[in-house]
């Protein structure tokens, strides 16, 4: 794979409990590094990793993108290191059935110390269904203060359209517990109260460990003297800044799968392809379009319920037919990934771009109104991608889908927009796959 004049070196690092794997891409070529470096979640280990990266590309390292997702998933699976969370569900009426009062995912529910219901909530378009029960909210806050709770997850129906009740509850909780980590579902958007609740529970539980990890790596980058930027891989295979990842750590969940798809596609020089990944239980496959992993807000492997954080769509791979053709998908090249999955994820992290998405419900009355809503959504997500590290003017639309919401009032639409960008002096894609549709400033 030939390099581009002016390309610099970029590193990707995958963190796992007790070890990490790193890769450096320089002039579009993978520079070999020691495969496994130990102790990478402690300061000395991070120093060791960054030393090896600097040695691989002396003076040229522009950025290091770290993938926290496997470590954070491990923290969920074995939650000794995560904080337990109080959940406040704001709904017109408490669930009468125990299964409806909790998360359907046992892993998520294990992170919950106590649940509360406060009357309130809005419909999908932001109309109030029930006034916020401020008396009950005061009782809940008093209980939380007595219990010394450190993490509070808040979710309300309709908060994507009207966050008023969630914000009022968050304000009251913060006043009662100034040191608490508060996660509110309105910060994530997305569809479905249970998926949004699971996302904020995980976000809240992982806040402390994500903060510790980012402190370690920010300090190590500073000590390294390389001047490299630190970036954090997102679940959709893009990257964000450490400050965004610290504020919303759930956005980093699931990154490893998307990075693995992108890494494999990059090494094969493919912008549009299907990637087959080996897994212990059999092969799985996922798609890459415009050099980015195809993602969806769906169930994250190992969690047991849907989240609103988009992650790579992986399905069992059906293999090839008797004549050697791929069985299901035959209109794009199929890339068979090989080698260490962590190493592929590192390549994917090194070549990743800043990304952002939104998933909202809106109401349109005419074609002109639809166009305005679409443009406003693109502008919002463009602003988010800049907050995630994109240089001004580099944001471009990678996906936009507007579909009518079935059995809703005429004019109700679901809008999903995904945008990517480039950092200043960013790595050029292997085959120049940046689509040509810029987002309106």
């Amino acid at each position: 794979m030939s390099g581009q004049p002016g390309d610099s070196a970029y590193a990707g690092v995958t963190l796992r409990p007790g070890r990490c794997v790193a890769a450096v891409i320089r002039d579009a070529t993978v520079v070999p590094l020691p495969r496994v470096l130990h102790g990478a979640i402690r300061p000395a280990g991070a120093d060791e990793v960054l030393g090896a990266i600097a040695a691989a590309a002396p003076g040229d390292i522009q950025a290091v993108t770290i993938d926290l997702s496997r470590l954070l998933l491990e923290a969920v699976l074995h939650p000794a290191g995560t904080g337990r969370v109080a959940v406040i569900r704001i709904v017109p009426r408490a669930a009468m059935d125990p299964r409806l009062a909790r998360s359907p995912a046992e892993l998520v529910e294990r992170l919950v110390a106590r649940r509360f219901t406060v009357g309130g909530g809005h419909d999908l378009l932001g109309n109030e269904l029930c006034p916020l029960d401020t008396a009950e909210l005061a009782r809940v806050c008093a209980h939380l203060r007595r219990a010394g709770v450190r993490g509070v997850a808040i979710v309300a129906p309709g908060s994507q359209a009207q966050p008023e009740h969630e914000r009022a509850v968050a304000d009251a909780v913060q006043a009662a517990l100034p040191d608490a980590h508060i996660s509110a579902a309105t910060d994530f958007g997305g569809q479905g109260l249970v998926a949004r609740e699971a996302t904020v529970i995980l976000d809240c539980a992982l806040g402390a460990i994500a903060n510790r990890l980012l402190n370690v790596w920010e300090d190590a980058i500073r000590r390294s003297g390389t001047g490299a930027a630190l970036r954090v891989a997102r679940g959709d295979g893009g990257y964000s800044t450490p400050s965004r990842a610290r504020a919303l750590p759930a956005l980093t969940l699931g990154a490893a799968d998307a990075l693995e798809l992108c890494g494999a596609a990059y090494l094969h020089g493919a912008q549009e392809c299907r990637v087959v990944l080996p897994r212990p239980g059999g092969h799985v496959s996922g798609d890459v379009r415009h050099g980015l992993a195809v993602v969806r807000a769906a169930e994250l492997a190992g969690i047991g319920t849907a989240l609103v954080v988009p992650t790579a769509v992986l399905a069992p791979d059906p293999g090839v037919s008797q004549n050697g053709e791929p069985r299901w998908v035959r209109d794009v090249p199929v890339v068979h990934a090989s080698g260490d999955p962590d190493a592929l994820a590192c390549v994917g992290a090194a070549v990743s771009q800043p990304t952002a998405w939104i998933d909202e419900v809106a109401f349109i009355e005419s074609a002109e109104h639809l166009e305005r809503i679409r443009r406003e959504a693109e502008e919002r997500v463009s602003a988010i991608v800049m907050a995630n590290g994109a240089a001004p003017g580099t944001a471009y639309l990678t996906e936009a889908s507007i579909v009518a919401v079935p059995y809703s009032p005429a004019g109700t639409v679901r809008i999903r927009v995904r945008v990517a960008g480039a950092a200043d002096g960013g790595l050029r894609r292997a085959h120049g796959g940046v689509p040509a549709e810029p987002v309106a400033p």
Partner: protein
Amino acid sequence: MSSAATGPGYIGMVSSIGAADVLTLYEGAKFYSPAVGDASKASLTSWLTGLLDRNGPVALRRADALPPETPCISLCVLGSGAALADLPPAGDEFALAVQRIERLQRVTFGAIYPLAAATVSALAPVAAASQLGLPLLDADGMGRTFALIHHTAMHLAGVSPTPLVAYGATGESVLIDAQSASRGTRLLGANVDPLGGWAALAAYPTTAGVLRRAALPGTVSRLVNVGRLLLERTDPDRLVARLAAIIGCHRVGRGRIVEFEQLSRPTDRTIPAHPSSLVIEESGERGRQLRIELRSEIVAVFADGLLVAGVPDVLCLLDVSRGEIATLDSLEVGDLVDVLVTPADGLWYSAEGLAMVGLASHGINLDHPRRR
């Protein structure tokens, strides 16, 4: 396994629905109406599984297996699946809706039946039957999902949908007793949004004897049988062949979605959702342009401008990359899909059936392909 693939009755008949059947039922129900996304799948299937674990399997009975005078009531989820996902049920809405009609009519219902055995409306009656300790009828009013609650076999047979009760997750309810089915639909439509965008609907109180002639039989068993095939996640070619064998499904074409259009046809406010369209570029040598017309469900499929399928056909998209049914609120440009067509129950191709739910009801004034 609480369901029996063979046994007394007929091949494919299911005698009960237990906890182990819930995911199968869900998948089959999605095939017959792919309108609702999976955002509430985990919580609804967990709820129903929990009920069936605690209370045991729900007996599934043909209408003619019950004494003809047995009072029966239908249930469905009225409104938007997206609203249901965002405002989940408290869990008692369906049973409370049934009990409100019991009090009004001073009857005790002896069986529940689905108003529409498809999408989440196929799960809710099982949950209520479990809560109320009643059998579920292996029959429904649509055999799929249509837009309005009087688009049923019962209505065509002269059974009134009223009195009906819509019970919301807000804890509020509406009782409607209208002079005609269409008036009932209209009055109901005005109340769905204030209840949060969806409600538990109990309607069409009648007897098992009436339902022997007025409902579509075997439509719950069919969901389980179709769901079993879908859960195998087999090669789409093989899946379509198997579905063809049991329900007459066939594939119109395979291709990638290239465009969405909103407000693509004139809108009237009598039917939920607005008309929209999507365009698929067919893969392979034929390379046709497939145009899919939507209005809550897929209502028509055109290939290079020629109408090749339309309501009341059951129309759905299979996501080829994932090997599962694609839901209509989660489609994206670039998705590779198979367009599948399955004949609906024969009643819907009659003159009166087509007049009520055919293409003309969606403003498409063309002869149905099956009647040319």
